[in-house]
């Protein structure tokens, strides 16, 4: 969160969500005004029409009475209506043919026909308080004049009520929009800030930092989950790289220090040419071992980069497996292993023959190398439902379950193999080649023994 509140305030004003809230509020106000105008004018017109209809009916009734009963009859009726009218304040005026007021509670006026608005002349009230009236007048055939009028305060009251209601609602809407927008964008900004803060923490070196997930599973949460997964992947890769570089340093230090010891020993103790020959021979051997490690690492890296897919062609896996197996038969015999080839005919695979040969070689070598004498090693190649199955199984001591995944990592060696020669890169290369060929690799416990199983393509 920002430490300077004004900064935060301006950020909220600039934030996308707040602007959107304002836009929505403005839209709401515009539609409220349109609604207000519609309601206001419809209601006013309806009420005015209603009042006019009442007045018109009254006026025509009185005109009818005049036609039937004459001026006196009308005067009587008007008097009666003024006295007995209970339904709302209706005002009457009857003027004789010479325009003198005969009866009525309205001041005299020049005769008109039809609707007319006017203000009640009442000197007792201040001008602003005087009732506004709307009336309907009829000039009778004999020159007499009837005016019926109603107080318009009901209409004004209604209009004022509508105005007030909309004023409140509109004001409240704008207020809610601003407060809501403030809260929403503040919340949004806090979450963005959290992401930014976590990024800075990671940049400062804490690779394990992760953005907290709220558990609401909204868009931001989903984004955060993706970001965290990406960070996991990056951390994993970085750790792998760090691991590999420290492993390389460690694994090369051993042959390098041996090389140094031999050279130093030769300098101190060698006296004959033969001594020097032995020392240089050994030194070359150590250097070759290191070069071998580099070349294996380079090869694994090349394969993992997928650079060699261009050399893919149809490979007769059956023929290749037999050739590799037969190459190892004499060696297996010498180390008193039983190497069995169980190879189905006509198994083909689209791939790189050289890499597949090296993969099979490494698998067979690995099995022969890490099992004691009198162990049986079987190389199986068969067609499977979804491609091929390659399996190298032995009935040796196996691998503890906890270490099964790790044997495919570069330089990983089982504790009991530490004393033997080998770089710990053989199975890493196998995995890389398998990956390049779309083969899934896993280890199976054959109790006793172990099987490396490759399936797919």
């Amino acid at each position: 969160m920002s430490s300077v509140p004004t900064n935060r305030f301006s950020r909220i004003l600039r934030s996308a969500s707040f602007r959107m809230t304002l836009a929505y509020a403005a839209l709401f106000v515009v539609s409220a005004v349109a609604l207000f105008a519609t309601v206001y004018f419809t209601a006013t017109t309806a009420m005015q029409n209603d009042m006019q209809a009442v007045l018109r009916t009254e006026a025509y009734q009185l005109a009818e009475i005049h036609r039937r009963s004459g001026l006196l009859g009308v005067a009587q009726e008007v008097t009666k209506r003024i006295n007995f009218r209970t339904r709302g304040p209706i005002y009457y005026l009857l003027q004789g043919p010479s325009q003198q007021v005969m009866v009525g509670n309205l001041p005299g006026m020049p005769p008109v026909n039809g609707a007319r608005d006017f203000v009640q002349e009442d000197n007792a009230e201040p001008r602003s308080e005087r009732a506004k009236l709307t009336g309907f007048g009829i000039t009778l055939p004999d020159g007499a004049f009837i005016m019926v009028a109603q107080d318009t305060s009901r209409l004004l009251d209604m209009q004022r009520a509508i105005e007030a209601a909309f004023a409140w609602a509109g004001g409240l809407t704008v207020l809610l929009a601003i407060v809501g927008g403030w809260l929403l964008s503040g919340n949004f900004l806090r979450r963005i800030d959290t992401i930014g803060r976590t990024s800075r923490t990671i940049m400062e070196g804490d690779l394990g930092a992760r953005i907290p997930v709220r558990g609401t599973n909204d868009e931001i949460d989903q984004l955060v989950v993706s970001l965290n997964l990406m960070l996991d992947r990056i951390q994993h890769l970085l750790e792998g790289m760090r691991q590999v570089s420290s492993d390389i340093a460690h694994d090369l230090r051993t042959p390098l220090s041996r090389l140094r010891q031999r050279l130093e020993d030769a300098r101190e103790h060698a006296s004959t040419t033969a001594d020097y020959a032995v020392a240089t021979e050994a030194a070359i051997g150590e250097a070759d071992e290191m070069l071998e490690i580099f070349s294996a690492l380079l090869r694994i890296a090349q394969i993992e980069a997928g650079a060699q897919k261009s050399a893919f062609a149809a490979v007769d896996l059956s023929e290749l497996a037999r050739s590799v197996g037969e190459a190892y038969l004499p060696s297996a015999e010498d180390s008193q292993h039983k190497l069995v080839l169980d190879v189905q005919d006509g198994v083909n695979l689209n791939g790189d023959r050289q890499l597949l040969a090296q993969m099979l070689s490494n698998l067979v070598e690995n099995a022969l190398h890490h099992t004691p004498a009198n162990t049986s090693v079987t190389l199986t190649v068969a067609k499977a439902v979804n491609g091929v199955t390659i399996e190298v199984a032995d009935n040796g001591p196996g691998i503890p379950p906890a270490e099964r995944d790790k044997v495919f990592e570069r330089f990983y060696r089982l504790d009991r193999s530490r004393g033997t020669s080998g770089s710990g890169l053989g199975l890493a290369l196998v995995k890389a080649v398998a990956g390049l060929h779309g083969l899934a690799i896993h280890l199976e416990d054959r109790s006793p023994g172990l099987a490396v199983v490759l399936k797919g393509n």
Partner: protein
Amino acid sequence: MKILLVEDDKQTADYVAKGLREHGHTVDRADNGRDGLFLAGSEPYDVMIVDRHMPQMDGLSLVKAARAAAVKTPVLFLTTMGGVDDRVEGLEAGGDDYLTKPFAFAELLARVSALARRPPIVAATKLAVGDLELDLLARAVTRGGKRLDLLAQELKILEYMMRHAGEVVTRTMLLEKVWDFHFDPKTNIVETHISRLRAKIDKGFSKPLLHTVRGAGYVLRAD
């Protein structure tokens, strides 16, 4: 033998040229592809040793240009990359063999000799070294008239060595030619096969034919 060495790294070039001269060969040197191509076109050589990566004109372009100019001299590529694609590329460009740096000098020497004395590609039906005979059609081996029983891979080794009789054949050359393995197995598969082959062809005969050349490889020789 007259050898052209095209290599831009002076230390490697010195090392190779010195070794070849010690073995009685004449060596011409070029330290870039353009000069190399000029020499290759103007002088008859028995073998060319060409580095893949050089300034001005790389090894691949040099060999392509030389082949286009009908120069048929066998070419050995030197490369720092062990990638399979690089080997295939080199062979497609017209190279005959390749060697990955760093290499043992004995390996280079054996390969140069093998390239220079490439057997003519004629369909011989019989190979012979001393009293050892290989009938290529019947896939049958006899020594002094006595039939020997060889396994398929032993026969392949023997055939390759008989075709290069008198030349040093290295462990790596056997891996490449017999098994088509272009990597270095941790197990001594070549040694074990050779020892079995030797037991079959030399055991019980007064004069051994299959000799080990220390630090280099093997040679099949009648004298």
